[in-house]
């Protein structure tokens, strides 16, 4: 069995995105994100590892809306990493920007230094009204209060797929790993895959002329590619 070093990436086709937020809901369910109340939401205590940013063009009633799902961009040169004093956030060999909840002491520095504002903090110990605790995903940690968290590219699904492939003694196929957001997108706007494999769908989309990166000018080298609207 040859060991291939993966480098995970994602492409999001903004031409296909309808802003339906199915990815947001799927992410909540998959990754054990706590549910919020209106009062807590008003205090800014909500967390969504993926959010839909809306950009409006024009004056009412002639308004065009652009939707943009924003998740952790898994930057190659992530600004959040060097500032963490305890190495709670670092790069893993597969190019993921990992957040280790065990190690996090909650200095908030990573979140301040994230230009995409995609890091979320557990302001309180998370709580779910009954019977929601029964639907917790056992493959994902229940984060304690006081730690930072963010999109993991559904690392538990990556692990599961790699494990399945290893058990069957075959290489991982392109498109086999599907994060919850990708799986749930009705418009199939999101594609996930291995950027090290030049034949993978995501690699081909990343090379597409429409592909751009968010706040690319900051030099963070994100691994999420946005395919802009063909106008």
């Amino acid at each position, binding site marked *: 069995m040859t060991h291939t070093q993966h480098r995970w990436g994602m492409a999001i086709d903004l031409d296909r995105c309808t802003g339906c937020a199915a990815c947001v809901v799927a992410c909540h369910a998959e990754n054990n994100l706590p549910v919020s109340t209106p009062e807590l939401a008003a205090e800014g205590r909500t967390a969504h590892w993926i959010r839909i940013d809306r950009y409006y063009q024009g004056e009412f009633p002639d308004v065009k809306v652009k939707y943009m799902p924003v998740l952790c961009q898994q930057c190659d040169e992530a600004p959040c*990493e*060097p500032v963490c004093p305890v190495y709670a956030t*670092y*790069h893993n*060999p597969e190019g993921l*920007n990992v957040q280790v909840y065990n190690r996090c002491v909650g200095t908030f520095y990573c979140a301040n230094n994230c230009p995409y504002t995609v890091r979320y903090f557990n302001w309180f110990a998370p709580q779910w009204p009954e019977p929601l605790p029964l639907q917790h995903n056992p493959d994902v940690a229940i984060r304690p209060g006081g730690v930072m968290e963010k999109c993991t590219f559904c690392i538990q699904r990556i692990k599961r797929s790699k494990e399945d492939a290893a058990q069957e003694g075959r290489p991982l196929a392109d498109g086999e790993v599907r994060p919850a957001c990708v799986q749930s997108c009705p418009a199939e706007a999101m594609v996930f895959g291995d950027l090290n494999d030049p034949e993978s769908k995501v690699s081909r989309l990343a090379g597409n002329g429409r592909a751009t990166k968010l706040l690319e000018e900051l030099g963070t080298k994100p691994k999420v590619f946005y395919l802009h609207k063909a106008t």
Partner: protein
Amino acid sequence: MYLIAEFREKDTVAAAIRLLRAGGIAPADLDVFSEEPIDLPRGVLERPSRMSLVSVSGAILFGALATAFIWWTQNDYRLVTGGMPVFSFWATGVITFEMTMLGAIVGTFGWFLWESGLLRKRDRNAPVPTVDPGAMCLRVRCRGNDIAGALDALRRAGAGDVQREGEV
């Protein structure tokens, strides 16, 4: 034995020390006691000090150790940094600087305790004069045959009151 002479003026102390040293008493046997620091003229009672050297050495030592420690820890458990260096001198230079300064502080303070004699084993039997505010006391340690000469020197310099303490 010890001779203790009380003085009121800085100049008379200086004169007494000059006379005593001319009479063959080593500077190590002389101590001036006062309630505030006194500046004697150059060449009267110089105490060579290595404090600056110790301070600089402490600084270099701490700085070097800190840098070595950082290099070792960052390389001991190598984490992938996604293109950024594992060990970067510039990114840890502040720590090197602070530790350098800490070395200087520790060196200075440690050497102060040593050189002032506060921590060193001192002659516990040596008498410590009680100094009146504004006055100065000169303590002379001398052996049998020097006593007469020293007494004479102190009187000539203008010491008010000379006491003898300790055995001959």
